[in-house]
Protein backbone atom coordinates (compact mmCIF):
# COMPACT_ATOMS: atom_id res chain seq x y z
CA UNK A 1 0.00 0.00 0.00
CA UNK A 2 1.38 3.39 -0.93
CA UNK A 3 0.25 6.88 -0.23
CA UNK A 4 -0.21 7.49 -3.93
CA UNK A 5 -2.35 4.50 -4.74
CA UNK A 6 -4.66 4.79 -1.78
CA UNK A 7 -4.69 8.48 -1.18
CA UNK A 8 -3.49 7.97 2.38
CA UNK A 9 -1.36 10.85 3.53
CA UNK A 10 0.12 12.43 6.60
CA UNK A 11 -1.53 15.50 7.97
CA UNK A 12 -1.53 17.24 11.31
CA UNK A 13 0.92 14.73 12.80
CA UNK A 14 -1.53 11.85 12.33
CA UNK A 15 -2.30 9.41 9.58
CA UNK A 16 -5.40 10.68 7.84
CA UNK A 17 -6.98 8.72 5.05
CA UNK A 18 -7.91 10.93 2.15
CA UNK A 19 -9.46 9.64 -1.06
CA UNK A 20 -7.59 10.72 -4.15
CA UNK A 21 -10.46 10.19 -6.59
CA UNK A 22 -13.59 12.34 -6.88
CA UNK A 23 -16.13 11.23 -4.31
CA UNK A 24 -19.57 10.08 -5.35
CA UNK A 25 -22.82 11.59 -4.09
CA UNK A 26 -23.36 8.67 -1.72
CA UNK A 27 -19.84 8.90 -0.32
CA UNK A 28 -20.34 12.61 0.28
CA UNK A 29 -23.62 11.93 2.04
CA UNK A 30 -21.84 9.55 4.42
CA UNK A 31 -19.09 12.14 4.83
CA UNK A 32 -21.61 14.86 5.69
CA UNK A 33 -23.28 12.66 8.26
CA UNK A 34 -19.93 11.49 9.63
CA UNK A 35 -18.43 14.98 9.86
CA UNK A 36 -21.41 16.30 11.81
CA UNK A 37 -21.65 13.26 14.07
CA UNK A 38 -17.91 13.27 14.79
CA UNK A 39 -18.40 16.85 16.07
CA UNK A 40 -21.16 15.49 18.29
CA UNK A 41 -18.95 12.68 19.54
CA UNK A 42 -16.12 15.14 20.19
CA UNK A 43 -18.51 17.25 22.24
CA UNK A 44 -19.55 14.12 24.13
CA UNK A 45 -15.97 13.25 25.05
CA UNK A 46 -15.30 16.85 26.06
CA UNK A 47 -18.29 16.97 28.38
CA UNK A 48 -17.54 13.55 29.84
CA UNK A 49 -14.00 14.73 30.55
CA UNK A 50 -15.16 17.97 32.15
CA UNK A 51 -17.56 16.01 34.36
CA UNK A 52 -14.62 13.81 35.49
CA UNK A 53 -16.80 10.72 35.33
CA UNK A 54 -14.06 8.39 34.21
CA UNK A 55 -10.69 8.13 35.88
CA UNK A 56 -7.44 6.28 35.22
CA UNK A 57 -6.92 4.37 31.99
CA UNK A 58 -10.59 4.70 31.04
CA UNK A 59 -10.40 8.46 31.35
CA UNK A 60 -7.25 8.51 29.23
CA UNK A 61 -8.90 6.30 26.60
CA UNK A 62 -11.87 8.63 26.36
CA UNK A 63 -9.55 11.61 26.01
CA UNK A 64 -7.93 9.77 23.14
CA UNK A 65 -11.40 9.21 21.69
CA UNK A 66 -11.84 12.98 21.59
CA UNK A 67 -8.61 13.30 19.66
CA UNK A 68 -9.76 10.60 17.22
CA UNK A 69 -13.09 12.37 16.69
CA UNK A 70 -11.20 15.57 15.89
CA UNK A 71 -8.96 13.81 13.37
CA UNK A 72 -11.90 12.00 11.79
CA UNK A 73 -13.72 15.30 11.46
CA UNK A 74 -10.74 16.86 9.71
CA UNK A 75 -10.45 13.95 7.25
CA UNK A 76 -14.13 14.05 6.40
CA UNK A 77 -14.16 17.84 6.16
CA UNK A 78 -11.29 17.61 3.69
CA UNK A 79 -13.23 15.11 1.62
CA UNK A 80 -16.19 17.50 1.55
CA UNK A 81 -14.27 20.65 0.76
CA UNK A 82 -12.30 18.88 -1.97
CA UNK A 83 -15.68 18.09 -3.52
CA UNK A 84 -16.74 21.73 -3.32
CA UNK A 85 -19.04 21.26 -0.34
CA UNK A 86 -18.97 23.13 2.95
CA UNK A 87 -17.87 21.13 5.97
CA UNK A 88 -19.99 21.47 9.10
CA UNK A 89 -18.72 23.41 12.10
CA UNK A 90 -19.53 22.90 15.76
CA UNK A 91 -21.28 26.29 15.80
CA UNK A 92 -23.73 24.99 13.20
CA UNK A 93 -25.36 22.81 15.86
CA UNK A 94 -27.08 23.13 19.19
CA UNK A 95 -26.24 19.71 20.58
CA UNK A 96 -29.00 18.46 22.82
CA UNK A 97 -27.94 16.20 25.66
CA UNK A 98 -30.73 14.66 27.74
CA UNK A 99 -30.91 15.91 31.30
CA UNK A 100 -28.64 13.88 33.54
CA UNK A 101 -26.42 12.56 30.75
CA UNK A 102 -23.24 13.70 32.43
CA UNK A 103 -24.11 13.25 36.08
CA UNK A 104 -23.16 9.57 36.22
CA UNK A 105 -21.08 7.06 34.28
CA UNK A 106 -23.94 4.90 33.04
CA UNK A 107 -26.07 7.51 31.26
CA UNK A 108 -22.95 9.17 29.85
CA UNK A 109 -21.54 5.94 28.48
CA UNK A 110 -24.95 4.98 27.09
CA UNK A 111 -25.14 8.24 25.13
CA UNK A 112 -21.60 7.77 23.86
CA UNK A 113 -22.34 4.19 22.83
CA UNK A 114 -25.41 5.25 20.88
CA UNK A 115 -23.37 7.75 18.88
CA UNK A 116 -20.39 5.46 18.37
CA UNK A 117 -22.57 2.56 17.18
CA UNK A 118 -24.45 4.81 14.75
CA UNK A 119 -21.18 6.05 13.29
CA UNK A 120 -19.71 2.53 13.18
CA UNK A 121 -22.77 1.22 11.35
CA UNK A 122 -22.76 4.08 8.84
CA UNK A 123 -19.03 3.74 8.15
CA UNK A 124 -19.42 -0.01 7.59
CA UNK A 125 -22.10 0.62 4.97
CA UNK A 126 -20.03 3.38 3.39
CA UNK A 127 -17.01 1.09 3.22
CA UNK A 128 -19.08 -1.68 1.67
CA UNK A 129 -20.75 0.50 -0.94
CA UNK A 130 -18.03 3.00 -1.92
CA UNK A 131 -17.03 2.42 -5.54
CA UNK A 132 -13.46 3.69 -5.11
CA UNK A 133 -10.68 1.92 -3.27
CA UNK A 134 -9.45 5.09 -1.60
CA UNK A 135 -12.87 5.81 -0.11
CA UNK A 136 -13.14 2.24 1.12
CA UNK A 137 -9.82 2.69 2.92
CA UNK A 138 -11.06 5.89 4.55
CA UNK A 139 -14.39 4.50 5.72
CA UNK A 140 -12.86 1.18 6.79
CA UNK A 141 -10.29 2.92 8.95
CA UNK A 142 -12.98 5.12 10.45
CA UNK A 143 -15.04 2.01 11.21
CA UNK A 144 -12.07 0.33 12.84
CA UNK A 145 -11.49 3.33 15.09
CA UNK A 146 -15.18 3.51 16.00
CA UNK A 147 -15.08 -0.20 16.83
CA UNK A 148 -12.34 0.54 19.35
CA UNK A 149 -14.27 3.44 20.78
CA UNK A 150 -17.42 1.34 21.01
CA UNK A 151 -15.46 -1.23 22.99
CA UNK A 152 -14.13 1.39 25.41
CA UNK A 153 -17.54 2.94 25.89
CA UNK A 154 -19.02 -0.50 26.47
CA UNK A 155 -16.48 -1.03 29.22
CA UNK A 156 -17.40 2.34 30.70
CA UNK A 157 -21.04 1.27 30.54
CA UNK A 158 -20.26 -2.00 32.27
CA UNK A 159 -20.90 -4.23 29.28
CA UNK A 160 -18.74 -6.75 27.49
CA UNK A 161 -16.00 -4.92 25.64
CA UNK A 162 -16.34 -7.25 22.66
CA UNK A 163 -19.95 -7.14 21.64
CA UNK A 164 -21.52 -8.46 18.45
CA UNK A 165 -19.28 -10.65 16.33
CA UNK A 166 -20.72 -8.82 13.32
CA UNK A 167 -21.63 -5.21 14.14
CA UNK A 168 -24.59 -4.07 12.08
CA UNK A 169 -23.98 -2.04 8.95
CA UNK A 170 -26.58 0.72 8.97
CA UNK A 171 -28.27 2.59 6.19
CA UNK A 172 -27.64 6.30 6.45
CA UNK A 173 -31.28 6.93 7.30
CA UNK A 174 -31.14 4.52 10.23
CA UNK A 175 -27.85 5.84 11.57
CA UNK A 176 -29.12 9.40 11.22
CA UNK A 177 -32.30 8.61 13.12
CA UNK A 178 -30.26 7.13 15.98
CA UNK A 179 -28.42 10.40 16.67
CA UNK A 180 -30.97 12.93 15.48
CA UNK A 181 -32.16 13.84 18.97
CA UNK A 182 -28.58 14.68 20.03
CA UNK A 183 -27.80 16.78 16.95
CA UNK A 184 -30.63 19.15 17.80
Amino acid at each position, binding site marked *: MTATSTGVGLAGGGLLARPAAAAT*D*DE*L*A*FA*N*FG*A*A*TELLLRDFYGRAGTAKLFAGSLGKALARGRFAATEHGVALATLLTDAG*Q*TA*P*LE*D*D*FEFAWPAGTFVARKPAATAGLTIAEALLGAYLTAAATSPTASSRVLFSSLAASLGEQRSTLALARGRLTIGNSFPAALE*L*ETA*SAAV*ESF*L*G
Partner: protein
Amino acid sequence: MRRLGYILTAIVLAVAAALAGAESARPQQGQLTIYAAASLTEAFRALDPSRQYNFAGSNALETQIRQGAPADIFASATPASTQNLFRAGLVEKPVTFTANRLALIVPKSNPAGIRSVYDLRTKPVKLVIASQGVPVGGYTRTVLRKMGLLSVLGKVVSEESDVKAVTGKVALGQADAGFVYVTDARPVSDQVTVVRIPAWAQPQVRYEIAVVARSTNKTAARQWIRTLLATRGQTALRNAGFLPPPKTAP
Protein backbone atom coordinates in the same frame (compact mmCIF):
# COMPACT_ATOMS: atom_id res chain seq x y z
CA MET B 1 -66.20 91.65 7.60
CA ARG B 2 -62.58 92.36 8.38
CA ARG B 3 -62.94 90.13 11.46
CA LEU B 4 -64.29 87.31 9.30
CA GLY B 5 -61.28 87.74 7.01
CA TYR B 6 -58.92 87.35 9.96
CA ILE B 7 -60.74 84.22 11.04
CA LEU B 8 -60.60 82.73 7.55
CA THR B 9 -56.91 83.58 7.25
CA ALA B 10 -56.25 82.00 10.63
CA ILE B 11 -58.08 78.84 9.59
CA VAL B 12 -56.17 78.61 6.31
CA LEU B 13 -52.86 79.09 8.11
CA ALA B 14 -53.76 76.52 10.74
CA VAL B 15 -54.70 73.94 8.08
CA ALA B 16 -51.53 74.70 6.13
CA ALA B 17 -49.43 74.32 9.27
CA ALA B 18 -51.12 71.03 10.10
CA LEU B 19 -50.51 69.72 6.58
CA ALA B 20 -46.88 70.81 6.69
CA GLY B 21 -46.49 69.06 10.02
CA ALA B 22 -48.00 65.89 8.64
CA GLU B 23 -45.62 65.98 5.68
CA SER B 24 -42.57 66.40 7.88
CA ALA B 25 -43.77 63.61 10.18
CA ARG B 26 -44.43 61.16 7.36
CA PRO B 27 -40.83 59.99 6.89
CA GLN B 28 -40.67 59.17 10.60
CA GLN B 29 -43.90 57.31 11.02
CA GLY B 30 -45.47 56.44 7.69
CA GLN B 31 -44.64 55.30 4.20
CA LEU B 32 -41.76 53.12 5.31
CA THR B 33 -41.53 50.58 2.50
CA ILE B 34 -40.00 47.25 3.41
CA TYR B 35 -38.90 44.74 0.80
CA ALA B 36 -38.68 41.36 2.49
CA ALA B 37 -38.23 37.69 1.68
CA ALA B 38 -41.57 35.93 1.24
CA SER B 39 -40.85 33.69 4.24
CA LEU B 40 -40.96 36.75 6.50
CA THR B 41 -44.56 37.60 5.59
CA GLU B 42 -46.31 36.45 8.77
CA ALA B 43 -43.56 37.48 11.18
CA PHE B 44 -43.17 41.03 9.84
CA ARG B 45 -46.92 41.61 9.59
CA ALA B 46 -47.33 40.41 13.16
CA LEU B 47 -44.53 42.68 14.32
CA ASP B 48 -45.71 45.79 12.51
CA PRO B 49 -48.92 45.60 10.46
CA SER B 50 -48.86 49.32 9.63
CA ARG B 51 -45.95 49.24 7.21
CA GLN B 52 -46.00 48.92 3.47
CA TYR B 53 -44.46 45.59 2.47
CA ASN B 54 -43.34 43.94 -0.70
CA PHE B 55 -42.84 40.24 -0.06
CA ALA B 56 -41.21 38.11 -2.77
CA GLY B 57 -38.20 35.94 -3.49
CA SER B 58 -35.05 37.68 -2.25
CA ASN B 59 -33.44 37.42 -5.67
CA ALA B 60 -36.38 39.21 -7.29
CA LEU B 61 -36.29 41.94 -4.64
CA GLU B 62 -32.55 42.38 -5.13
CA THR B 63 -33.18 42.93 -8.84
CA GLN B 64 -35.95 45.44 -8.13
CA ILE B 65 -33.71 47.44 -5.79
CA ARG B 66 -30.94 47.45 -8.41
CA GLN B 67 -33.47 48.90 -10.82
CA GLY B 68 -34.33 51.70 -8.41
CA ALA B 69 -37.46 50.39 -6.69
CA PRO B 70 -38.54 52.72 -3.84
CA ALA B 71 -37.57 50.50 -0.92
CA ASP B 72 -36.38 51.80 2.43
CA ILE B 73 -35.37 48.44 3.90
CA PHE B 74 -34.34 45.14 2.34
CA ALA B 75 -34.60 41.89 4.35
CA SER B 76 -33.19 38.88 2.53
CA ALA B 77 -33.34 35.13 3.17
CA THR B 78 -29.74 34.85 2.08
CA PRO B 79 -26.71 37.03 2.83
CA ALA B 80 -25.78 36.75 -0.85
CA SER B 81 -28.43 39.24 -1.97
CA THR B 82 -27.75 41.86 0.70
CA GLN B 83 -23.98 41.52 0.31
CA ASN B 84 -24.28 41.92 -3.48
CA LEU B 85 -26.17 45.15 -2.99
CA PHE B 86 -23.79 46.32 -0.26
CA ARG B 87 -20.80 45.81 -2.56
CA ALA B 88 -22.63 47.80 -5.22
CA GLY B 89 -23.23 50.62 -2.75
CA LEU B 90 -26.99 50.16 -2.94
CA VAL B 91 -27.59 49.28 0.72
CA GLU B 92 -25.93 50.18 4.00
CA LYS B 93 -23.96 47.53 5.90
CA PRO B 94 -26.26 44.50 6.39
CA VAL B 95 -26.78 42.78 9.72
CA THR B 96 -27.92 39.24 10.46
CA PHE B 97 -31.20 39.17 12.32
CA THR B 98 -32.53 35.62 12.29
CA ALA B 99 -32.11 32.07 10.96
CA ASN B 100 -34.32 29.30 9.70
CA ARG B 101 -34.44 25.63 8.85
CA LEU B 102 -35.76 23.66 5.93
CA ALA B 103 -38.47 21.04 6.04
CA LEU B 104 -40.21 18.78 3.60
CA ILE B 105 -43.97 19.20 3.60
CA VAL B 106 -46.60 16.82 2.28
CA PRO B 107 -50.39 17.27 2.06
CA LYS B 108 -52.31 16.01 5.10
CA SER B 109 -53.77 13.27 2.91
CA ASN B 110 -50.18 12.29 1.93
CA PRO B 111 -51.13 10.44 -1.27
CA ALA B 112 -47.52 9.44 -2.00
CA GLY B 113 -47.00 8.00 1.49
CA ILE B 114 -43.93 10.11 2.27
CA ARG B 115 -42.68 9.53 5.83
CA SER B 116 -39.00 10.43 5.38
CA VAL B 117 -36.94 12.52 2.98
CA TYR B 118 -35.41 9.24 1.80
CA ASP B 119 -38.85 8.14 0.58
CA LEU B 120 -38.46 10.68 -2.22
CA ARG B 121 -35.88 8.36 -3.74
CA THR B 122 -37.97 5.22 -3.75
CA LYS B 123 -41.58 6.34 -4.20
CA PRO B 124 -43.26 7.87 -7.24
CA VAL B 125 -43.78 11.45 -6.23
CA LYS B 126 -44.65 14.82 -7.72
CA LEU B 127 -42.13 17.14 -6.09
CA VAL B 128 -42.30 20.93 -6.14
CA ILE B 129 -39.34 23.12 -5.25
CA ALA B 130 -38.27 26.74 -5.71
CA SER B 131 -36.07 27.78 -8.62
CA GLN B 132 -32.30 27.66 -8.20
CA GLY B 133 -31.95 31.45 -7.96
CA VAL B 134 -34.44 31.76 -5.11
CA PRO B 135 -32.74 31.28 -1.71
CA VAL B 136 -34.98 28.38 -0.66
CA GLY B 137 -34.35 26.76 -4.04
CA GLY B 138 -30.61 26.91 -3.49
CA TYR B 139 -30.97 25.62 0.05
CA THR B 140 -33.14 22.74 -1.20
CA ARG B 141 -30.40 21.63 -3.55
CA THR B 142 -27.85 21.88 -0.72
CA VAL B 143 -29.97 19.56 1.43
CA LEU B 144 -30.33 17.06 -1.40
CA ARG B 145 -26.61 17.23 -2.15
CA LYS B 146 -25.70 16.67 1.50
CA MET B 147 -28.03 13.68 1.72
CA GLY B 148 -26.91 12.16 -1.57
CA LEU B 149 -30.40 12.63 -3.00
CA LEU B 150 -29.78 14.89 -5.99
CA SER B 151 -31.37 12.21 -8.16
CA VAL B 152 -34.81 13.17 -6.80
CA LEU B 153 -34.58 16.41 -8.78
CA GLY B 154 -35.76 14.21 -11.64
CA LYS B 155 -39.14 14.06 -9.86
CA VAL B 156 -39.63 17.82 -9.78
CA VAL B 157 -42.84 18.77 -11.60
CA SER B 158 -42.69 22.49 -10.92
CA GLU B 159 -40.14 25.13 -9.93
CA GLU B 160 -41.62 28.16 -8.20
CA SER B 161 -40.55 31.78 -7.85
CA ASP B 162 -40.81 31.90 -4.05
CA VAL B 163 -41.40 29.72 -1.03
CA LYS B 164 -45.05 30.70 -0.63
CA ALA B 165 -45.81 29.32 -4.08
CA VAL B 166 -44.22 25.99 -3.10
CA THR B 167 -46.20 25.93 0.14
CA GLY B 168 -49.43 26.74 -1.66
CA LYS B 169 -49.08 23.97 -4.22
CA VAL B 170 -48.51 21.34 -1.54
CA ALA B 171 -51.24 22.69 0.73
CA LEU B 172 -53.70 22.55 -2.17
CA GLY B 173 -52.67 19.01 -3.01
CA GLN B 174 -51.27 19.97 -6.41
CA ALA B 175 -47.98 18.30 -5.47
CA ASP B 176 -47.05 15.33 -3.26
CA ALA B 177 -44.19 17.08 -1.49
CA GLY B 178 -42.22 20.31 -1.42
CA PHE B 179 -39.23 21.85 0.31
CA VAL B 180 -39.98 24.99 2.32
CA TYR B 181 -38.78 26.75 5.45
CA VAL B 182 -40.12 25.39 8.73
CA THR B 183 -41.77 28.78 9.28
CA ASP B 184 -43.80 28.47 6.08
CA ALA B 185 -45.33 25.21 7.20
CA ARG B 186 -46.79 26.76 10.36
CA PRO B 187 -49.51 28.93 8.82
CA VAL B 188 -50.81 25.92 6.85
CA SER B 189 -50.33 23.31 9.55
CA ASP B 190 -53.94 22.18 9.14
CA GLN B 191 -53.24 21.35 5.49
CA VAL B 192 -49.74 19.89 5.51
CA THR B 193 -47.58 17.50 7.49
CA VAL B 194 -43.95 18.34 8.17
CA VAL B 195 -41.28 15.74 7.44
CA ARG B 196 -38.15 16.63 9.36
CA ILE B 197 -34.79 17.07 7.63
CA PRO B 198 -31.85 15.84 9.75
CA ALA B 199 -29.79 18.53 11.46
CA TRP B 200 -26.60 17.33 9.75
CA ALA B 201 -28.18 17.93 6.33
CA GLN B 202 -29.49 21.42 7.11
CA PRO B 203 -28.00 24.37 5.23
CA GLN B 204 -27.07 27.55 7.06
CA VAL B 205 -30.13 29.71 6.44
CA ARG B 206 -29.20 33.20 7.60
CA TYR B 207 -31.31 36.33 7.07
CA GLU B 208 -29.79 39.76 6.64
CA ILE B 209 -31.37 43.18 6.65
CA ALA B 210 -30.12 46.58 5.49
CA VAL B 211 -31.25 50.14 4.91
CA VAL B 212 -31.47 50.91 1.19
CA ALA B 213 -28.94 53.60 0.29
CA ARG B 214 -31.33 55.72 -1.78
CA SER B 215 -34.03 55.68 0.91
CA THR B 216 -35.31 59.13 1.84
CA ASN B 217 -36.43 57.73 5.17
CA LYS B 218 -33.22 56.38 6.62
CA THR B 219 -33.77 57.50 10.21
CA ALA B 220 -37.08 55.65 10.42
CA ALA B 221 -35.62 52.68 8.55
CA ARG B 222 -32.73 52.37 11.00
CA GLN B 223 -35.13 52.66 13.92
CA TRP B 224 -37.29 49.89 12.44
CA ILE B 225 -34.24 47.61 12.14
CA ARG B 226 -33.29 48.40 15.74
CA THR B 227 -36.78 47.32 16.79
CA LEU B 228 -36.41 44.11 14.81
CA LEU B 229 -33.10 43.33 16.51
CA ALA B 230 -34.47 44.16 19.96
CA THR B 231 -36.56 41.90 22.18
CA ARG B 232 -39.88 42.82 20.55
CA GLY B 233 -38.70 41.99 17.06
CA GLN B 234 -36.88 38.84 18.07
CA THR B 235 -39.93 37.64 19.98
CA ALA B 236 -42.13 38.13 16.90
CA LEU B 237 -39.67 36.11 14.85
CA ARG B 238 -39.42 33.40 17.51
CA ASN B 239 -43.22 33.19 17.67
CA ALA B 240 -43.27 32.57 13.92
CA GLY B 241 -40.78 29.72 14.31
CA PHE B 242 -37.57 31.50 13.33
CA LEU B 243 -34.29 30.78 15.10
CA PRO B 244 -31.91 33.20 16.81
CA PRO B 245 -29.09 34.49 14.60
CA PRO B 246 -26.22 31.99 14.40
CA LYS B 247 -23.35 32.44 16.86
CA THR B 248 -20.91 32.96 14.00
CA ALA B 249 -23.02 35.63 12.29
CA PRO B 250 -21.42 39.06 11.80
